[in-house]
């Protein structure tokens, strides 16, 4: 087992105070502390080379879990073992095999070109000259930023900066890559480039990826497996496609008639199935088994000009899920 997380709990001590000057003064003299549980009893096992997405609304505990895995936080209870190491002990051997990219934080030096930060990482991670050159060239070409290498980081666009962050994070060829909101604020082209890159890197180096993202499309395209967190609790661990099916088993059929049938035919059909008709296009959003029945009924009498089965938009499905997750699982 490459990663084993058992009964992981993380709480933070927080102090409460009411708004305004009075609240500030009261809190200055008499501070009231409470324990906030960011993660409760999380269990997770991962094999090397898996890509796992962590889903959850704001404050669900996604970033806390990532920070525990990279060793930035000490667990309150439970255990995390990655490749035989407890991350929070920050063993240098462990750190040489792991990396994290946080969408809102950067490790690059702001006032100097990214190439200088890369060189620094080369020495920090003790990367051999030949491996460094080879990896740098590969990453720079894949992410298409060769002409930006000698530009001060603060002069780069958000997308270019994120690509540079990813290069800096992967120069030492880590076997565990933690990506926290890697596509945050990026345009669709840059998002797509980063998603393709993750898949490529995972395949080539058999690296394990753990990804959090608010963009469900990121998770849908990159991760077969997902972990769903809600208020710090583990709600689901399994295939993303199965989660979507569990949340919304409906699919959509779009059937285009070559000739528009009689009105009476649709009146009969409406007694059996729920659908919409616009011109010569029938659209139905039903459970898969019902949809199959409808299709077979239609095909018995008509040959379509075109037809398609569609999954419902994942964004909408996940939105309704997070409003009341306990209703679905």
């Amino acid at each position, binding site marked *: 087992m490459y990663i084993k997380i058992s009964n992981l709990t993380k709480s933070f001590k927080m102090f409460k105070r009411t708004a305004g000057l009075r609240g500030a003064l009261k809190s200055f003299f008499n501070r009231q502390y409470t324990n906030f549980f960011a993660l409760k009893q999380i269990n997770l096992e991962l094999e090397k080379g898996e890509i796992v997405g962590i889903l959850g609304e704001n404050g669900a505990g996604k970033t806390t879990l990532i920070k525990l895995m990279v060793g930035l936080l000490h667990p309150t209870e439970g255990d995390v073992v990655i490749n035989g190491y407890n991350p929070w002990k920050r063993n240098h051997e462990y*750190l040489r095999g792991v990396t994290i990219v946080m969408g809102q*934080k950067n490790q690059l*030096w702001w006032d*100097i070109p990214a190439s200088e930060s890369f*060189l620094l990482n080369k020495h920090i991670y*003790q990367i051999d000259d030949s491996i460094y050159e080879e990896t740098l060239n590969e990453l720079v070409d894949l992410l298409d930023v060769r002409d930006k290498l000698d530009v001060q980081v603060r002069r780069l666009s958000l997308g270019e900066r994120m690509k540079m962050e990813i290069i800096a994070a992967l120069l030492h060829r880590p076997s565990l890559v933690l990506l926290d909101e890697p596509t945050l604020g990026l345009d669709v082209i840059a998002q797509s480039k980063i998603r393709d890159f993750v898949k490529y890197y995972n395949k080539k180096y058999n690296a394990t990826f753990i990804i959090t993202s608010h963009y469900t499309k990121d998770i849908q395209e990159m991760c077969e497996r997902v972990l769903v967190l809600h208020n710090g609790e583990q709600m689901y661990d399994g295939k993303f496609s199965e989660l979507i099916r569990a949340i919304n088993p409906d699919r959509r059929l779009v059937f285009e008639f070559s000739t528009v049938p009689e009105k009476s035919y649709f009146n009969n059909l409406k007694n059996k199935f729920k659908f919409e008709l616009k011109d010569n296009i029938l659209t139905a959003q039903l459970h898969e088994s019902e949809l199959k029945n409808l299709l077979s009924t239609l095909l018995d009498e008509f040959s379509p000009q075109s037809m398609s089965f569609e999954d419902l938009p994942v964004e909408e499905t996940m939105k309704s899920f997070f409003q009341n997750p306990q209703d679905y699982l």
Partner: protein
Amino acid sequence: MQAIIKKYSAVLKINWIQALEYRANAVVGVFAILSGLFIEYQIWSLIFESQSLTSVNGFEFRELMIFIFLSIIVGQLKSSWHTSGEMIEGIRTGDINKFLIRPISYFWYHFMMFIGVNSLYYTVYSSLLVALIIIFPGSIFPEIINIFGFILALLISIFLSYSIYYIMICCAFWFGEVRSIVVAYNLTMLVLSGQYIPIRLFPESIIEFLEITPFIYLVDFPVSIATGRMPTDMWLINFIFSIGWCIIMWMIGILVYNRGIKNYEAYGS
């Protein structure tokens, strides 16, 4: 070992490159010290003239000026305000994360950063020192051995100063914001280390107290060696004590860091 040296010299180099990016900042920093030297000169000229003094506690005017000038230079060389400010801000905002996720020592990384940031000043201050030696021959480094003694005492002062700052910085793991502690320390240290007024002008009881603290090794010790005011037979015991303080402060720093990091909440994203 070679890899470790390469690792930390790379940190030093990148900080030096960063320092070179801000040429205006470096120039202003150099002017700041020159204006400090000028003000001290004016104040002490007035004191000597108005009181018709020929010497103060064994210092003639020229000797006092040289001692103070050297003290200001040494005080600036060991100054960690820039690095400590960045470190505190890093703990408060979560920027420290980028060091914690890499196989590098937080203590040594920032020590190298501190040296790198100050590197421009080292060059300029060394030139000032050479100028002082030429202007006042025999008053600074009366013997060759004083040069070596001064360099060693200066290195100890730089490390000791950084180690003391490091302890205060690590308190940010508990309190979040410790800049007021650092400012209070800076002001106290300016006086207690002898950076602006030589300790030798203080009452005997205060001098005796300061001799058992690490502050005396920050400025007074290297300057006393450079000006030949400390007899050579006193050097060894003072070097032993100053190195002892370095080890104590370094170890306290490690202890505070190891405790503090467990409290760290990795703020920010």
